[in-house]
């Protein structure tokens, strides 16, 4: 049994490391892609501006070419109309050549404008298509980012929790020499409670639920019901000195209020603590119940 558990433990440790590695690699990918997307969008804007400038220049060149054609046509007309004193005309070869050259320039200017307009439209079409693809990608990038920030650490915590279970088994098999009795008992009791609740209410309650607390820290709720949060405590309150008892209760309040404040728990969930050890002293029980009731926390006692 012990050797099987050791194999499982080794494999779980490898999974925990692999989850951590993947978390880093996923974050690297998200950052690299974001950088490349920004670079691409910036390049597209630059091409858009370039073709806009090209179109403006082509328009100005076209206006100029039109004026040149008009000038050449006027010069040719003047040449053709010219007559000397004896009514003879003269050769208009150079005016005709100038007009042909101006008309060629005009066609070239028209072609340049058409090309610039086509390229500008092409860039605009691609800008829209890229924006759409980036928008679709962003939805999935947000989900992966959530997994990196929350899902993968939660999975690691889950594995670590299972590892603590295995540690418990191994320590129990080895005589529990290296594990304090309180910790050993706590691990064992939590496991027993979890298994008992899951068996009694299959699929109706959630046990060991990982939630986000303030500042992104993770907390593990022992038992989550649709409208309430229950935590198990297995320390022996009766053996605590008054100051230690107050400290322990303050910690219980703080822990449960963190759970209640988490975005992962039902709003306004009722809070309750199940103490595995019922103090024999009425005064201690009353003190604990009064203290916790001030914070709207119900108390249940084990038998």
């Amino acid at each position, binding site marked *: 049994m012990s050797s099987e558990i050791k194999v499982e433990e080794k494999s779980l440790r490898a999974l925990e490391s692999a989850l951590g590695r993947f978390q880093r690699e996923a974050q690297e990918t998200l950052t690299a892609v974001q950088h490349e997307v920004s670079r691409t969008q910036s390049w597209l804007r630059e091409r858009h501006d370039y073709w806009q400038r090209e179109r403006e220049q082509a328009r100005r060149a076209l206006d100029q070419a039109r004026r040149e054609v008009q000038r050449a046509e006027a010069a040719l007309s003047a040449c053709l109309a010219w007559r000397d004193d004896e009514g003879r005309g003269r050769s208009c070869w150079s005016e005709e050549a100038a007009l042909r050259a101006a008309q060629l320039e005009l066609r070239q200017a028209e072609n340049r404008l058409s090309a610039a307009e086509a390229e500008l439209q092409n860039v605009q079409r691609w800008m829209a298509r890229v924006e759409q693809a980036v928008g679709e*990608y962003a939805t*999935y990038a947000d989900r992966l980012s959530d*997994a990196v920030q929350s899902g993968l650490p939660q999975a690691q915590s889950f594995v670590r929790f299972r590892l603590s279970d295995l540690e418990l088994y191994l320590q129990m098999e080895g005589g529990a020499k290296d594990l304090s009795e309180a910790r050993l008992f706590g691990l064992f009791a939590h496991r027993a409670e979890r298994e008992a609740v899951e068996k009694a209410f299959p699929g109706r309650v959630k046990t060991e639920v990982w939630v986000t607390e303030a500042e992104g820290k993770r907390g593990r709720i022992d038992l989550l019901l649709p409208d309430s949060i229950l935590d198990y405590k297995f320390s022996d309150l009766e053996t605590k000195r008054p100051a230690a008892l107050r400290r322990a209760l303050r910690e219980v309040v703080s822990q449960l209020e963190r759970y209640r404040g988490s975005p992962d728990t039902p709003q306004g969930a009722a809070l309750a603590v199940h103490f595995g050890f019922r103090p024999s002293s009425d005064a201690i029980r009353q003190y604990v119940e009064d203290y916790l009731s001030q914070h709207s926390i119900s108390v249940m006692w084990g038998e």
Partner: protein
Amino acid sequence: MSSLLSSYQHITQAWQKLRGQWLATSEQWRDGVHQRFEREQWQVIETTVLGYAENLEALAAVIDQMRRNVK
């Protein structure tokens, strides 16, 4: 190869490694917590990563085509 395609390959290779480790661990992890982990953690991560990779590949294809078509 475009930078996005290289990112796509990076994440898919990283995913294959993690998935390989998960399959190896599944063989050894015998109790009911294994099923719970698979249902509550692994399947969510798997859906997220595969959806992401698919969309990254599509984005890489669009940007690659754009680079070849825009002067």
